[in-house]
C-alpha cells in the first residue's frame, strides 16, 4: 500500500491554474522527486499534500486514509520541511527542535531525547545551545530539516531544502535524507536541480505549468522518451530547463 496517493489533484487561484490533474504515489522507503522550474507548481503540490491548501478537486490519501477525512492523523504521519526557513532566531537550535517536537505531540522528556539524537545525526551537537541567529545558512537548513523529523514521520515532504547553500552543506543534507529513505521513510522531494533528482530519487515526476509531463524511474523515463537526450523548449528564458548527460534535458531558448 502506498504511503501517499495523489489522485487527479487540481487547484486554481482565481483564473490561474496552479495544479492540474496531478497524480502520483510515494511508497514507504521511496525517494520521489518532483522536478520542475520555478513556478511549475511544486510548492503548491506540497502545500496541498500537507493540508496547507485545500484542493478544488482530487484526493490525497495518506497511509490508506483520505487526508481530509482524518487530517489530525494525516498531520501526525507527515513532516514538512518548508522552502523558507521556519525557525525562531532568538532560540537555540536545541530549543527550536524541542519546541516543534512538543507541538507535534512529544512529551518534554521525549522531545529532549529526540533533539539530542537529531543534533548528533545532523552533526550540530557542539552548536546545539547557540542561538539560531548565530548559525550559518547550511546549519539553519539542517535545523529546519531536524524540526520536521522530531516526531519520526512516516512521510517527509521536502520543498527545495537545499536552496541557497554551499555544495558541501548540500551534500551533507542530501546524504542524511538518503539515509532516512533507506530506513523506510517515504520522501517527497521537490527540486529544480536535475543532478539532485538523478542522484537521489527512485522515481521522478517532471512538472511544469501545474501538470505532470512525465513520471517514472530514470529507466522508465528513458524508455518513455526513447532517446538518451531530450530537448525541451520554453518561450521564456527564465523557464529554461537544465541540461544533463545520460537522461539529458537540454535547454534551448526559443
Amino acid at each position, binding site marked *: 500500500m502506498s504511503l501517499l496517493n495523489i489522485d487527479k489533484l487540481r487547484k486554481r487561484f482565481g483564473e490561474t491554474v496552479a495544479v492540474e490533474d496531478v497524480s502520483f504515489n510515494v511508497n514507504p522507503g521511496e525517494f520521489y522527486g518532483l522536478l520542475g522550474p520555478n513556478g511549475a507548481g511544486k510548492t503548491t503540490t506540497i502545500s496541498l499534500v500537507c493540508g496547507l491548501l485545500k484542493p478544488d478537486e482530487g484526493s490525497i490519501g495518506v497511509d490508506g486514509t483520505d487526508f481530509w477525512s482524518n487530517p489530525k492523523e494525516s498531520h501526525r504521519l507527515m513532516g*514538512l520541511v518548508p522552502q523558507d526557513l521556519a525557525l525562531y532566531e532568538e532560540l537555540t537550535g536545541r530549543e527550536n527542535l524541542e519546541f*516543534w517536537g512538543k507541538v507535534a505531540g512529544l512529551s518534554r522528556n521525549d522531545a529532549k531525547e529526540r533533539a539530542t539524537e537529531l543534533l548528533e545525526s545532523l552533526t550540530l551537537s557542539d552548536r546545539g545551545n547557540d542561538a539560531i541567529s548565530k548559525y550559518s545558512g547550511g546549519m539553519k537548513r539542517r535545523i529546519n530539516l531536524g524540526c520536521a523529523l522530531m516526531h519520526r514521520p512516516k512521510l517527509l515532504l521536502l520543498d527545495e531544502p537545499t536552496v541557497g547553500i554551499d555544495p558541501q552543506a548540500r551534500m551533507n543534507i542530501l546524504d542524511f535524507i538518503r539515509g532516512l529513505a533507506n530506513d523506510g521513510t517515504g520522501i517527497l522531494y521537490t527540486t529544480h536541480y536535475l543532478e539532485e533528482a538523478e542522484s537521489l530519487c527512485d522515481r521522478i515526476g517532471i512538472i511544469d505549468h501545474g501538470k505532470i509531463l512525465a513520471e517514472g524511474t530514470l529507466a522508465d523515463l528513458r524508455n518513455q522518451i526513447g532517446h538518451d537526450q531530450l530537448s525541451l523548449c520554453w518561450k521564456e528564458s527564465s523557464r529554461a530547463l537544465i541540461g544533463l548527460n545520460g537522461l539529458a534535458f537540454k535547454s534551448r531558448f526559443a
Partner: protein
Amino acid sequence: MHLIRTLLAKDLRRVRRNPIPIITQIGIALILVAVIGLAFGEQAKSGSGMAPIKMAIVDEDESFFTELLQNSISSKKFAEYFDTEFLDRAEAMERVDANEISAVAVIPDGFSDAFLDGSESGRNLELIKNPAQSIYTAIVEEGLEALLTLLNALSRNFGEELRNWRDILEEAEEADFFSTVFLASKLLGDAREQIESARDYLTPPLVSFESSTRSDGTEEEAGKPFDLFSYLFAGMAGMFLLMIANSSTNGIYRESQFGTLRRFSSMHGRLLPFVLGKMVLVVAVTSISAVIMFVGGALLFGIEWISPGKVAIVTLAYCVCGAGLTSLIASIAGKEKRADTPNTIIIMGLALLSGTMVQTDALPGFIQDYVSPYLPTEWFIRTVRDLQNFDMATEWVGISIRLCIFGFLFAGVSATLFHRKILKGGAV
C-alpha cells in the same frame, strides 16, 4: 492546554532573549502616566485627585450680591476645586503674568444692579485666561458657564424676589424690625411656593438616585465628590491599553513573516491554540501595563481607587477582550505594514466613540444610542468611571464576563480567518 503552555513558554523564552519590544510596549504605560503627570503637575496629589485650580476674582462691583458670592466661594466644598483669592485688577494681572494663577474672573462695577434689574448692559462677567495653563483655564471657563446658567435661571425665575431681598437687606438698618421680618417671611413663603411647584421638574433625578443608593446601603460612597482626575485617567487607560495590546499582537505578524505560522498550520489543522497562546502573552503584557498605569496613578497623583479589586477584574477582562480584538484585526489585515494605518484608525475610533476624550453624552445622538453602547471600550471605560464615582453592586461582574466572552469570540474568529486564509493560499 499542553499546546498553549508550550507556545507560551516559547514566547516567554523569546522575550527573555530579546526583551526590548516588550519593554517598549510596557514603556508606553509609563509614558502615559508621565504625560498625565506633566499635564496636571505634582499638585494632583492633593484634593480630589486634581489640585485646586488657582484663580483670582476681581470684585469691582462690591455690592451685597457679590458679598454673597464671596461667602459661597469661600465654602469648603468650593475650595476642594478652586483656590480663590480676591484681588484688585492690577495685582491679578501681575499674578497671571507670573504664571501663579490660571484665570481671573472680573465682576464689573454695577453688575448686581444690572443683573437684578434685568437691564441689557453691564451684565457681562469678564474672564482673563492664563495661556500657559490651558487645561485649568478650560475647566474654569466650563465652571463659569455653569455659574452663568445658574444666574440666568435665578434671574428668570426669582428676579422679583431677589430684588425685594436686596431692598430688604439694604434698608434693614433703617426700617423697623417687625416690618422687615414681615416682608422677609412673606418673601420666604413665596419662594417656597415657587420652588414646590417647580420641584417635580427640577429634582426627579436626585430623588430616584438617592433611593437606589440607600437600598444598597452605601450612603457613605454616594456622598463622595466627583473625581475628575480618575475620570480622565480611566478614559485614557482604555485607549492606551488597546494600543499596547495591538503593539504586543505584532508577534503574530512576525510568526507569519518567519513562516512559523505556516509550519504550525502544517502540523495542526486548527489555529485556535496558536491564537490563544499569543493572546495569553498579550494579556500578560497589557495587564502589567495596566498595573503600572493604575498603581502609578494612585501613587503619583493620589487617585484613591474606591474599588481596586473590582477595577482590577474589569481591567483584566478588558485585556482579554483587547487581545482578542487585536488578533482579529491581525487576521483580517494579514501583514504588519498593511495593518498599521487601519489599526490606528480602529483604535482611535473605538476610543473616541467610547468616551475616552469626551463624554459619550457629548457625542451625536445616533452614536450615543446605536454605537457607543455596543463597544467593549465603552463598557470598560464606563464601568471603571462608575466604580470610582458611583456604586455598582453587580453590574461590573456582568460587564467583566461579557468582555471575556467577546475576547474569546474574537480569538475564535481570528483563528478561523487565519486558517481560511492559509487554505486559500492568502498572504499569511
